[in-house]
């Protein structure tokens, strides 16, 4: 039973990262039709009539990596503004129209992409296209809306970063791991930047990132490919194209030694996060790294759980996160130490496990287990129209071809024990590491 309460932010969706393996027949089971519109937008359609609903995703290749100091968080703020009025559907009207026709929406922004999501009954299909075309083409910026939405985003930041230990430490970890590349700053933006964006900044962002040729649309559900292509021709194809964002040319210099930071904060428990630089998502090591992560972190039989939670009993949980990324990125390792445990004890245990993975090959059973887990994860993502739209789109955008989804089987089964060991050696050395520790700072207790 999930405890009721506030929902988690959509960031979680991304953390369930694409660790997928696919049986050969998957391609038959999940056929995708593709077309590139005259204005450059690629459209992928996968019909599925099991429920009378549709999931529609639009991925824009723009995120916080396309920002500059002073306007950090602008992509995310812009994402909010995409719901606040265009030419035909004025402020508030988009949501009202969509919900009155049975639809719902959301969106998420990452360091790399901004993604818009619509979930609706098929009866709302043409309305959704009318709405999407309106805001891609004729978004408007009402000064009053900018003012109130700025407050909304500040509240979101207080909720998910400032008053949440994981959010606080995560932000510091990225900012320390990256000193040159724009992955340095947080997606939500620094609070002072949130308070200072201007209308001009928003207009510039729209011109830069929201060209149809910088976007991919994925439609999964109770539709036919032909009807979607026809709707696209009518509503989306007339939207004019322009130049996409300039390339991000900054390359993060190699890290030459361990970086350590402390965050002092009133807290019941400490918190520990590690980061190691790893390649971008479409690198050949993606598969071996995912197998390694599975063996180290997934399930109660994983090496890290067995060691830190079960045997040493120094942590409540251990996990890892890799977000889809265009540029070389980091793997984050998060340990929640128990009360009274020195986080360095967790560090030591984790380093030993990482060294063990680098020092000797994993077992055959572990390799088989990891491949089995990837297979079941694949089915979990493909069991809903929503999961499929997100997965197909993410593969298309980050690997450059949705068909890579169907090659994953081959790529995972090709991973050997030696590949896994090589990846452990290549990426988990101490010089490549950033360590962030949240230290409980409790004035009342200090007095006692």
């Amino acid at each position: 039973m999930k405890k009721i309460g506030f929902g988690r932010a959509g960031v979680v969706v991304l953390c369930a990262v694409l660790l997928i393996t696919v049986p050969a027949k998957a391609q038959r089971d999940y056929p995708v039709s593709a077309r590139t519109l005259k204005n450059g937008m690629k459209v992928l359609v996968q019909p599925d009539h099991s429920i009378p609903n549709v999931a529609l995703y639009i991925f824009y290749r723009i995120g916080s990596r396309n920002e500059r100091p002073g306007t950090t968080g602008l992509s995310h703020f812009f994402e909010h503004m995409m719901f606040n009025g265009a030419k035909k559907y004025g402020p508030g009207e988009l949501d009202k129209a969509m919900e009155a026709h049975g639809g719902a929406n959301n969106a998420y922004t990452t360091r790399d992409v901004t993604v818009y999501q619509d979930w609706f009954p098929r009866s709302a299909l043409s309305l959704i296209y009318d709405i999407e075309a309106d805001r891609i083409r004729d978004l408007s910026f009402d000064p009053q809306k900018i003012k109130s939405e700025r407050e909304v985003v500040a509240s979101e930041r207080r909720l998910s970063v400032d008053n949440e230990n994981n959010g606080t430490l995560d932000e510091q970890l990225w900012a320390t791991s990256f000193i040159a590349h724009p992955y340095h700053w947080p997606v939500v933006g620094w609070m002072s930047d949130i308070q200072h964006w201007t209308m001009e900044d928003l207009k510039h962002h729209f011109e830069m990132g929201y060209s149809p040729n910088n976007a991919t649309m994925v439609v999964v559900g109770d539709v036919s490919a032909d009807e979607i292509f026809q709707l696209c021709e009518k509503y989306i194809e007339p939207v004019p194209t322009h130049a996409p964002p300039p390339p991000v040319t900054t390359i993060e210099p190699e890290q030459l030694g361990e970086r350590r930071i402390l965050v002092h904060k009133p807290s019941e428990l400490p918190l520990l996060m590690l980061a190691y630089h790893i390649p971008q998502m479409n690198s050949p090591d993606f598969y071996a790294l995912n197998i390694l992560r599975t063996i180290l972190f997934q399930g109660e039989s994983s090496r890290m759980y067995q060691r830190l939670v079960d045997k040493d009993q120094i942590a409540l949980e251990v996990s890892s996160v890799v977000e889809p990324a265009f540029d070389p990125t980091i793997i984050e390792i998060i340990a929640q130490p128990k009360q009274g445990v020195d986080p360095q004890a967790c560090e030591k245990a984790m380093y030993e496990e990482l060294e063990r993975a680098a020092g000797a090959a994993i077992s055959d059973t572990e390799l088989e287990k990891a491949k089995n887990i990837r297979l079941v994860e694949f089915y979990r993502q493909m069991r809903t129209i929503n999961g499929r739209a997100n997965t197909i789109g993410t593969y298309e955008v980050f690997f450059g071809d949705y068909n890579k989804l169907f090659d994953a089987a081959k790529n995972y089964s090709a991973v050997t024990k030696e590949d896994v060991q090589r990846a452990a050696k290549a990426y988990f050395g101490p010089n490549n590491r950033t360590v962030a520790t949240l230290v409980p700072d409790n004035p009342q207790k200090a007095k006692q």
Partner: protein
Amino acid sequence: MTRAWIARRLFAAALLAFFICPAASAQALRLPPHEKLVLKNGLTVLLLEKPGVPLIDIFAIVKAGAAGDPAGQEGLAAATAGLLRKGTKNRTAQQFAADLDYIGGTFEADAGADFTGISAEFLTKDLARGMDLFFDALAHPTFPQDEADKFLAQALDGVRAEKDDPRSVLVPYYYGYLYGIHPYGRPAGGDEVSLKQIGREAIAKFYEANYAPGNTILAVAGGLSSAEMRAKLEEVMGTWPARAAKSVAIPVAAPAKGRRLLLVDKPDSTQTYFAIGNTGIAVTDPDRVAIRVVNTVFGGRFTSELNEALRVESGYTYGVESFFDERKTAGPFAIFSFTKNETTTQAIDLALQVLAKLHKDGVTQAQLDSAKSYIKGQFPPEIETSKQLAQMIATHEFYGLGDDEVNQLEARVDGVTPEIARQVIQKHFPAENLVFVLIGNASAIAPAVKKYAADQDARPITEPGFWPPPAGAKK
């Protein structure tokens, strides 16, 4: 970072409701056919065929939840559930984990207020191994001493970790303050004091008293024929010996009278998290569909009255929602939100104005029409997977609800008129009698929030427990 914060809750399935319904209209949306049988040992089995991805889902309900925890031992039902896989007749905890992970399976068990839910998922081809694992945990746990000690120590730190994120503990403080000593006020996961009162013996005793075939409902859904699933189930689950178990009776809580306010002090917080409400309804309340429609208008979606006021128009918050947590007897109703310290009273005042307006003006036909479309349009993805379906049919069986919860949903939603809406607002949405729980920086907000209730309580978040303060709560 994401745009909207309103979350679709897991128990939404259980909220589906019925109403004295007009004649069924032609509609496509129906629960897939499923069958029910009772094994000789008393186990109720529900089988549902769901073609699609090759996954099998099991959801079992043991009819004893956190509301059955003895006072002072809150968290007992959850600890019992959590330990099922931590050592069985046939496997150590480590062997169980290795066998489960090897097939990519999942096994989760936790206690809600009314029942303990145990779920598992694995590939269809692993039916025999998966079923064997599930049954081993359900029917043959041994509760080894060292595993119990480990689990309880972790649960204790889990409560502490939750207190580092105020939004995740607003629920236990609010439920505790609303219900007091009534079972629905107890924190399902326990607290820093109660978890120290639980040991291996209490857990084994709770298991013996409640985990029995006749006290369990087991639903299986997936891409196999009922006959295949049935044969396997009878073979495996049929060997669970029958045993007496008594069901837990939950008294109906009286709604709170007047107004009272609990301020939980977290001095470093830059925003105030608040819950406002009173007791709500039972799962089986005849008004449940009408309430669902009205609550969609009031605080159950992005364009709700509450979200329009507190987020869209004023920017006070990233999100606000209202919900009825429907249970065996009257569960809680709440408005939940958060805002920066400086706008605490503005946001709460505005939420109260929206509630007053609901009582004064009711809902318009246009609002009703929109909410009806929204509920009907958003419902199909809630019964899309075998996992959702297994949980839904088991929950319906537990609460005595039928397939009409789904099959008649559209007709029942369509039957709600402005007049019916007016009646349910008067009857079920609190007006003057309100319970407030705030978590925030007391030194910044305490004077301003005095105006909400003459009757006020306060606790620092660092003191163990939620509400009422457990005996010996001072650190």
